[in-house]
């Protein structure tokens, strides 16, 4: 790659309690499109995202658009126009939908309510409902909506389709595809059909290290390699 990558990670090291989760991983994410972060369960994908955001104590170097992030507290990292859609959504269940969105307004540009309500009409219909009383799929939409409200340069998205019914998986994938036209994403996703459909680049973690970095199709078209690296068979049903 000739141009500087949007995100360059070097020697990212994370200990949680007594376990050494990430052993100095390094990778790059180029501007534009979706990069999928893959790997077996418990291999440290979520920890990688949290490490980038400073939500867990970490060492090493994370450069975002040339700027070093590891010295900044979480909120200042996010203010660099990075958004986080955590695993398990983590919407504020006691707050209403509207309040959840209002909280996400960052003040670094006009909040894009039109876009969010266009993508998720249900969030507008249910704006006065308490987020905790919504279904898992609706909470996921709210969590994605929170991230889309601001004009972000990088989205860190952790398993957005986890635990969703098949029709909702397609709906979320549609949104992710539309999002990928607007901004760069680093996506952790178990559903390889979704990965094949929206990601162009893949990173695979194993034993706390990056063991693959390359094209998505190249990886998923090779069943032996997929099984070896991801511990699953490649799904053939990628809908294009």
């Amino acid at each position, binding site marked *: 790659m000739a141009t500087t990558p949007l995100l360059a990670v070097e020697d990212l090291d994370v200990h949680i309690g007594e376990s050494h989760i990430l052993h100095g991983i390094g990778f790059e994410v180029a501007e534009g499109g979706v990069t999928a972060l893959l790997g077996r369960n418990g291999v440290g994908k979520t920890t990688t995202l949290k490490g980038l955001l400073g939500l867990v104590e970490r060492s090493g170097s994370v450069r975002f658009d040339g700027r070093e992030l590891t010295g900044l*507290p979480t909120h200042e990292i996010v203010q660099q126009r990075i958004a*986080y859609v955590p695993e398990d959504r*983590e919407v504020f269940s006691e*707050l209403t939908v509207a*309040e959840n969105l209002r*909280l996400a307004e960052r003040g670094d540009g006009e909040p894009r309510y039109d876009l969010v309500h266009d993508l998720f009409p249900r969030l507008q219909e249910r704006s006065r409902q308490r987020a905790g009383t919504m279904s898992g799929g609706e909470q996921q939409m709210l969590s994605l909506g929170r991230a889309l409200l601001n004009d972000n340069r990088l989205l860190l998205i952790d398993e957005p389709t986890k635990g969703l019914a098949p029709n909702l998986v397609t709906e979320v994938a549609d949104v992710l595809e539309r999002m990928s036209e607007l901004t760069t994403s680093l996506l952790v996703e178990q559903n390889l059909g979704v990965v094949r459909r929206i990601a162009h680049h893949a990173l695979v973690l194993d034993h706390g290290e990056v063991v693959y970095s390359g094209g998505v199709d190249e990886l998923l078209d090779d069943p032996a390699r997929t099984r070896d690296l991801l511990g699953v068979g490649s799904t053939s049903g990628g809908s294009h």
Partner: protein
Amino acid sequence: MTVFVLLTITGLGLAALYFLVASGLSLIFGLMDVLNFAHGVFLTIGAYATWWSAQRLDLIGEPTLRLVVAIAIGMAVGAAVAVAVEVAFIRPLYGQHVGQILVTVGLALALTALLRAIFTPDARAFPVPDWMGDTTSVFGASIPNSRFVGIAAAVAVYVGLMAFLKRTRYGLIIRAGVENRAMVTALGINVTRAFTLVFAIGGLAAALGGAIAGTYATSINPEQGGHLLIFAFIVVIIGGLGSLRGAAIASVLVGLLQQYANFYALVGAGDLIVVLLLAVVLLLRPQGIGGRAAA
């Protein structure tokens, strides 16, 4: 009937005091996981600052107005002390819960001792306007007017805090932070400002509580905050850590229960029942009445 009315209103008056201390404690614990043993001292300092100002405000001839101004000063002092405690002592120990609790324990002991050293351990007469010391007859029961003032003050603080939590951006941040602090920072919000803010609110309400306690007893002493703190803790736990509504309900419950049982059963029974109630609540429903929610 007369006795029951008297007990009910004085019980509510006591509940008002508990709530003024417990509201701040609850928000602080809910948002920051800090069990603030220094909260009682905020109350005492507020009471002393009010007393001290009232003595020096002699250009205000009208006693009620003088007390009101003095209380405003006392609340400002209470808030300032609380903010100083958060910034200087709690903040450097973020992430170390036991360390933070220990620091507040040390501050509670040291600041109480400091008040004793400065103002002597003896009780000081608190300036109460005549009308507040007078009684009003309710269904034949003579109730000191100070109790009505106390109840009104607590209700005002409750309504004001609720409005603040529901209507303002900082209120939103506090409510969200009580639920999930990490996610608030992950939305790009500097949550440490909210930490300082809840300490300021806690100091303000506790200082008001100190002044109200002064009007009830017509005197103040360096230990009064510590005595109230234990029951405020009980209220906070029964009400649910971080829940303002829970704290309000639990304040009323505890205040009334104490008054009724102390009168109708043995002396001290009310206090014991309240403590046992806490044990029962903790063992059966550890999250308290209100669960983990700020409002």
